[in-house]
């Protein structure tokens, strides 16, 4: 059932992606089916899940690695599915209008569906490695989504930025997962959390896992990719950055926190990074002129908040985090939808250019105001309930809790300020920018375009007024993370410390908004001289420079140098092993039969003559003599199969050699190499010869185990139905290897043709004319 839901996403997504151009925005309808069905299915399963009885399914995949398709739907996953698939469905509806005339609607629809499926996999996976697989799938699909406008270099750069940062974090996380899994003896997440390892190894592993979560959820100092990712079309931003992708890190931290909060540096690290992100992101959100950038930094700030709540591992905070998770998803997607509508209808989202929103914009403005109010935690919204809960969680704790409380109150004040800024910029852009006159927007959005926004705004209000509606879900979700956690969301707790704090937060937020110019100036002075983006770019530049330098050393472009390195390695590695190892068991018989003598003479003569040849053709023919000599040796030793192969290969390779050599000068270049180079060549050649000969002697006497060939010979006829053991090995015992090898042959054939035809492809540069020296590699 659970696997089928993920499979549905994969199938529909692939179909839409393949047929993308033809389907156009109808692809949204087909792709949107997958999250819609998922929501219905999840709600159908909700009964037992909310009672604390998770739905599980398991299919064996790679048991040797502990990698099984273990899926588990508990109440917290259910909450995430409400976000991922529920809000996802609304985003599809919204995108129907947003992408009305977009040529890439079909492609976007297919990728969004695949992305939704990957995200569903992340929240359902009950196996560390499986979780990692889906995690990386979200990275890859979001890379394609962010860069969907592939003609725009900014979009490509932003997509790559997101992929590199989250990918690096993901690799660290994989390392952490493996250490954790080995330490605990299981890769199943539910088992791992039931009996968590606590040693030093686990502590280090957790830091690695956190690195993955931090990069994915855009925590400072890894946040810089998220604002850049706003180049994507708004439905994509709305989905990736409100409901889904960036929540993956929060989800992971929430899962692990109750079990691991006290192991190693987990709690100080998560809480510290979360608070820093919340405050710094909030400050940064006060500055941009682009409404979408404002929301991006707002998201970063809120993710920091979520990180603190869900990562600290205290039952009350966990419950508050679950509530905020849902509230944030609702209001943030509403805000993104508003920005998308404004952008779509007026062509700008820059505060300095926004027109006044006149007639027909009522619903849009309402969605904006309600969602922003929820973000600012104004009473009677879902955001208020969640933030009250968060304040309550920390208000009665010890000194540490008080410190955290100070941090989140400060962050929330900034949240109020930038929420106000958002609303003010949208409704009174002139006032914010300090002008009096603004043109009025030409046309207003249709009701259908705003409808998804109206739905989420209504949900925000309803949940804010009647908290009992979602108290059960949040309660169960928190309980699934931490049995001691319970939500009990209520509208009115009486006049108490959290309420007073909330009021103070709102008041302070208004004050900061009013004083945003001086605040902005102070910030500009205090702001660090190096931004996250610059660090990222510096790292990328450094890596590229390092790679270029390494390549210029390793890949000199000189065939003799390559040959020397390869040959020297071939001589050194086995040579060292033979000198140090217990290899010598005396000389084997060298000449066992009279027939060996002429063959040996042929071989030695051919080899010597090949080195003395001055013409290329002659050298190849003499090498062929050596090859035939080897074949003769196989005949003498009684191995007709090998001999046959060797004869055939030798014949053909001489012909192929000749084909290639026709393009080279007839005679070898007569050039006396510098003395040092000459000495080096002789030394390497001699070393290779000596080592190979010694290896031949040594290996002949070095066998310590019974040869495997005996068993192969015995089982060839009964198991492989063949008397020719060599052939049975090729087609049966090592059949899969053979399949791989012939695939390589096909690839090689294609490669040869491609190389040989490179010079005659129509429209390509002719190596003979346009580029006088194509074979020379530039230093």
């Amino acid at each position, binding site marked *: 059932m659970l696997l089928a839901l993920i499979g549905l996403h994969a199938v529909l997504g692939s179909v839409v992606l393949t047929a993308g151009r033809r389907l156009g925005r109808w692809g949204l309808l087909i792709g949107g089916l997958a999250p819609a069905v998922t929501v219905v299915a999840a709600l159908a399963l909700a009964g037992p899940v909310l009672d604390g009885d998770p739905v599980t399914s398991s299919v064996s995949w790679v048991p040797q690695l502990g990698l099984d398709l273990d899926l588990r739907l508990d109440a917290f996953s259910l909450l995430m599915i409400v976000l991922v698939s529920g809000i996802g469905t609304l985003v599809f509806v919204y995108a129907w209008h947003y992408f009305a005339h977009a040529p890439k609607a079909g492609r976007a629809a297919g990728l969004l569906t695949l992305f939704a499926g990957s995200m569903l996999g992340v929240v359902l996976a009950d196996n560390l490695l499986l979780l990692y697989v889906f995690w990386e799938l979200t990275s890859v699909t979001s890379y394609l989504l962010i860069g969907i406008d592939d003609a725009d270099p900014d979009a490509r750069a932003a997509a790559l930025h997101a992929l590199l940062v989250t990918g690096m974090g993901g690799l660290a996380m994989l390392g952490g997962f493996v250490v954790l899994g080995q330490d605990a003896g299981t890769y199943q997440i539910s088992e791992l959390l039931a009996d968590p390892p606590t040693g030093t190894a686990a502590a280090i592993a957790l830091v690695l896992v956190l690195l993955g979560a931090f990069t994915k959820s855009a925590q400072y100092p890894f946040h810089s990719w998220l604002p850049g990712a706003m180049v994507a079309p708004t439905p994509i931003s709305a989905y990736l950055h409100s409901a889904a992708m960036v929540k993956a890190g929060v989800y992971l931290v929430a899962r692990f926190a109750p079990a691991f909060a006290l192991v190693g540096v987990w709690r100080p690290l998560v809480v510290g990074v979360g608070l820093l992100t919340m405050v710094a992101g909030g400050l940064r959100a006060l500055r941009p002129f682009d409404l979408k950038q404002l929301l991006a930094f707002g998201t970063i700030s809120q993710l920091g908040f979520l990180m603190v709540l869900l990562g600290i591992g205290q039952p009350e905070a966990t419950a508050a985090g679950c509530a905020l998770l849902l509230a944030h998803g609702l209001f943030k997607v509403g805000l993104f939808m508003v920005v998308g509508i404004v952008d779509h209808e007026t062509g700008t989202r820059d505060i300095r250019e926004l027109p006044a929103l006149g007639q027909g914009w009522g619903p849009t403005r309402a969605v904006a105001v309600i969602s922003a109010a929820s973000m600012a935690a104004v009473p009677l919204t879902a955001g208020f309930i969640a933030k009250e809960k968060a304040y309550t969680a920390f208000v009665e704790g010890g000194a540490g809790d008080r410190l955290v409380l100070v941090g989140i109150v400060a962050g929330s004040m900034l949240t109020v300020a930038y929420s106000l800024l958002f609303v003010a910029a949208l409704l009174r852009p002139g006032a914010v920018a300090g002008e009096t006159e603004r043109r009025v927007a030409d046309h207003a959005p249709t009701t259908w375009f705003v409808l998804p926004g109206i739905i989420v705004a209504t949900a925000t209000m309803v949940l804010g007024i009647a908290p009992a509606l979602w108290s059960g879900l949040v309660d169960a979700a928190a309980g699934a993370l931490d049995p001691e956690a319970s939500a009990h969301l209520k509208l009115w707790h009486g006049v108490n410390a959290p309420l007073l704090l909330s009021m103070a937060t709102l008041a302070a937020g208004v004050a900061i908004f009013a004083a945003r110019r001086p605040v902005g100036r102070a910030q500009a002075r205090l702001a660090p001289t190096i931004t996250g983006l610059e660090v990222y770019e510096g790292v990328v530049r450094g890596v590229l420079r390092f790679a270029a330098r390494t390549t210029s050393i390793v890949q000199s472009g000189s065939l003799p140098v390559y040959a020397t390195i390869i040959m020297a390695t071939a001589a050194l590695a086995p040579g060292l092993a033979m000198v140090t190892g217990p290899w010598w068991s005396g000389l084997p018989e060298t000449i066992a039969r009279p027939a060996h003598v002429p063959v040996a003479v042929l071989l030695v003569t051919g080899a010597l003559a090949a080195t003395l040849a001055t013409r290329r053709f002659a050298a190849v023919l003499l090498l062929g003599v050596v090859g035939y000599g080897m074949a003769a040796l196989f005949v003498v030793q009684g191995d*007709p*199969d090998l001999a*046959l*192969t060797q004869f*055939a*290969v030798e*014949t*053909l390779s001489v*012909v*192929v050699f000749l*084909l*290639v050599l*026709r*393009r080279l000068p007839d005679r070898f270049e007569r050039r006396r190499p510098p003395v040092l180079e000459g000495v080096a060549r002789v030394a390497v050649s001699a070393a290779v010869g000596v080592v190979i000969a010694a290896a031949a002697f040594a290996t002949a006497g070095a066998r310590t185990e019974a040869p495997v060939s005996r068993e192969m010979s015995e089982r060839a006829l009964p198991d*492989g*139905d*063949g*008397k*020719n053991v*060599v*052939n*049975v090995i*090729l*087609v*049966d015992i090592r*059949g*899969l290897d*053979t*399949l791989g090898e*012939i*695939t390589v*042959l*096909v690839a*090689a*054939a*294609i490669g*040869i*043709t491609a*190389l*040989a*035809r490179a*010079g*005659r492809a*129509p429209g390509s540069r*002719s*190596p*003979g*004319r346009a580029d006088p020296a194509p074979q020379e590699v530039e230093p």
Partner: protein
Amino acid sequence: MTPRRSLIFDTTTRLLFDATLVLSAYLLFAGHNQPGGGFVGGLVASAAVALRYIAGGIDEVRSLVNVQPWTFLAAGLALAVVTALVPLALGDGPLNQDAYEVQLQLLGKVKATTATVFDTGVYLIVIGLVLMIFEGLGDERTEPADLAEADDPASDGEGAR
């Protein structure tokens, strides 16, 4: 290739060519019990093709079969992969093979194994590879000296044949 051809060499080649192909087919089918197999069989057939190439150049090789070399590669790979996958569909390991004994009129009792099918795939790929090599490297008209003319569509005989 060069217009000058040796009559004796030509005739000998024609004679040898068919015999070599028969030998290669024999090697392919006998391979499971006697020396031989798909790889060697393919190499021997390729050697026969090489002989024709030496006698008559690339046009001679092209006149042998009227399908493109990559058709051999594709057919061979498809055959091998299908042989590998069929046992999977039947619930065995990949490439699990089976043998059948058939009574034929002239030949008597013949044992056929599914391994021969796989070997045929290998055989076709080896031939395809060699044909590709001749196609890629053996075309006189794209010698480095001639590359200047290769830009001229009239001399690009590839697509027109």
